[in-house]
């Protein structure tokens, strides 16, 4: 965090009120469980909570195939996806904010989201002209592996570029600028393709950018869950280096931290999380920026050993809650998840920015 950040002085990260942290984490776990249950219980089709519970426990009426289908094939995968997305994005956002010591950094700061978008656009927008790619489209795009692979490849390409640059660039601020510029260039390429694409292709791409938690089922969900678990695992091992990085790179180095190696691990973890989530669900905004701030405010600590699981839980709870809202209980419509998270997230970012003491040139 920057020196003016509202978080407690990082010099004494661990000396905090333990009981508050424990109760805070417990509260978050409770929130996640509640939000998960709500998410599975609510939806366009009204199903009594008890019926949902029976189906979840495997005691649903066998004849009621529609309800079973909705609970097991639609709501449960969607809630699990929300869980993975929320925890993954929040943790990657937290890592980026600490690494770049910038409260407005997020998973998209490295250009990863833009890279994934570039991969998707490559398939969706340019395939009309390439006869060979037509075969890819025939396989069915939405939710297909082609899309996931393209997005992953795009994110990975950007990640490779950023990692290569990270090895050369010592200054994290420069790295942040590099990420933003990569995002800008990829965005421009996508715009160019859109300009020359048929409206139907643009529609398709536009829908992808709205983000969606649905449609990630079966093997897709398994892959997403595995990659997110891997990314979260890597992130948790980075808790101590992240604490040291809070003090600045030079200080961290003097503490004996191998800064370059830690930085690589952090970037790798973020790339896995943001890349896989964007690949499967589209770019989902603001969770990555907003949740770390909320977590710090709620838990009142800057210790990443607490913050990482905290952000993980709060992110999951938040995305689950957003998904409940996106389904507009009682209506047949689902709002794009990206719209809901941004509507909630933007005010949070505003709040964070505005409540910072206004710094005059020191």
């Amino acid at each position, binding site marked *: 965090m920057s020196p003016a950040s509202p978080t407690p002085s990082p010099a004494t990260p661990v000396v905090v009120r333990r009981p508050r942290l424990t109760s805070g984490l417990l509260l978050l776990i409770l929130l996640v469980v509640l939000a998960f249950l709500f998410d599975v219980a609510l939806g366009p089709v009204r199903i009594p909570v008890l019926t949902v519970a029976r189906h979840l426990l495997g005691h649903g009426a066998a004849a009621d195939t529609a309800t079973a289908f909705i609970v097991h094939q639609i709501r449960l995968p969607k809630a699990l996806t929300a869980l993975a997305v929320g925890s993954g994005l929040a943790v990657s956002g937290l890592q980026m904010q600490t690494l770049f010591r910038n409260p407005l950094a997020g998973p998209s700061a490295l250009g990863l989201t833009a890279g994934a978008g570039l991969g998707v656009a490559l398939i969706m927008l340019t395939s009309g002209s390439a006869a060979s790619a037509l075969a890819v489209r025939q396989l069915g795009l939405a939710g297909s592996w082609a899309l996931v692979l393209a997005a992953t490849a795009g994110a990975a390409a950007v990640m490779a570029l950023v990692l290569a640059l990270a090895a050369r660039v010592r200054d994290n601020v420069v790295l942040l600028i590099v990420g933003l510029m990569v995002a800008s260039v990829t965005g421009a390429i996508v715009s160019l393709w859109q300009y020359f694409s048929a409206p139907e*292709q643009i*529609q398709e791409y536009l829908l992808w950018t709205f983000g969606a938690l*649905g449609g990630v089922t079966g093997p897709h969900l398994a892959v997403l869950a595995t990659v997110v678990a891997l990314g979260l695992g890597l992130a948790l091992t980075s808790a101590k280096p992240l604490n040291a990085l809070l003090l600045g790179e030079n200080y961290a180095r003097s503490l004996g931290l191998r800064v370059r190696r830690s930085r690589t691990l952090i970037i790798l973890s973020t790339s896995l999380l943001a890349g896989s989530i964007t690949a499967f669900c589209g770019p989902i905004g603001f969770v990555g920026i907003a949740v770390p701030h909320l977590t710090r405010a709620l838990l009142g600590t800057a210790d990443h050993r607490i913050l990482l699981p905290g952000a993980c839980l709060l992110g999951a709870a938040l995305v689950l809650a957003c998904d409940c809202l996106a389904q507009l209980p009682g209506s047949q419509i689902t709002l794009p998840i990206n719209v809901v998270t941004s509507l909630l997230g933007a005010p949070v970012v505003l709040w964070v920015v505005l409540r910072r003491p206004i710094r005059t040139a020191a």
Partner: protein
Amino acid sequence: MPHSLPSSGRVGGTTFTFWRQPSGWLLSLLLASHLGGWSQARVAPPRPPAPATRPSQAATPAPAGRTTVQYAKGFRLAYVGNYKVISIQNPFEPQAKVMRYLLVPRGAARPAGYPDAQVIETPLRSLVALSSMHVALADFLGSADLVVGVGSFKYVSAPRVRQRIAAGQVYEVGQGKELNNELLVAHHPDLVMTTGSPGEGIDHFQTLRAAGVPVLINSEWVETTPLARAEWVKVLAALLNKEAVVNQKFDAVAREYQRLAALGHQATKKPSVVVGLPFKDVWYVPDTDSYMAQFLRDAGATYHWDRVKAPSGSLALSFEAVAPVALGADYWLQTGSLSTKAALLAQDARYAAFAPVQRGRVFNNNLRTNAQGSNDYWESGAMHPDLILADLLHILHPELLPTWTLRYYRPLR
């Protein structure tokens, strides 16, 4: 946009079916359907059995050299002295500007009055068709050779026009912002026909109008029935002085359509149908005022959203809202660009639970897709609602048309 006409989706892997809208407004549309749709979707009053298959006026034979509009609500055609007046408006926005076009014999003076109207000299000797449906209009009237330019070569199916494209006799002018004004001004066709909202879009064509190239904005997408959409061919017929041809050919299509629709209405069994292909959480289904809903009514189908109205012509429903209907449906129609069951399941394995998939009753309307990927359903199909209805009847009620061979639909194997 190229091939915008069907205003719906033969989108690669998905079907975004904006059943009536020109897809150029996709942003506003998507936003409207996502943000506004849920508050505005409402249940329409029950409709009489089959109003749209009945002509809106008594079908009196038109005088020689004239034709009358019987189904379409978006345009009017008047014969005044030696010229004709075409008025195009949006019936859903009565306050919106009505666009007038004066069809004047070549060389005759501009009639007095109508200060805002564009003058088009008839009969046309050349036509630039920005949308593939306009190619179909010309082809239907036996005037495919008048098509000298198209929006995009990729989206043309008509064999005669494809031949002419191969022979280098047709130029490609692009669409929307990419419209090649210089090429058009240089060739100076007798008319550029495009699709859009009456009144709104004409500003985009200031350059052409200044150069004296007339631009006619069709808005066949406002129509709510297949016959009304097809009847827009009378606009081109008036421009070509081919009223006699259109009276004979369109009436034949309308008679056949109504004969088939009567069969569909009499069917005692009404199989249930789901339409379209979801994209993750969203499943766009046609609303009550879409011509697709009318097709289903006339084909003797049960359609779950038959009476639900949406502002954009299609309902953006969540997957969960449609899935229970799809699970128990008899048939599933129009699965985007997918042509095989394997591709369908590759997109989302959950479709395997849908009854139509299990019973092999999934049909797509992309049988006539050419090497360029252009689907003739949106081109010649727009002029042949009778053939499409026959396909649907054959699919939904095999006993009614046992010997019919599918023309536009194909089963997913």
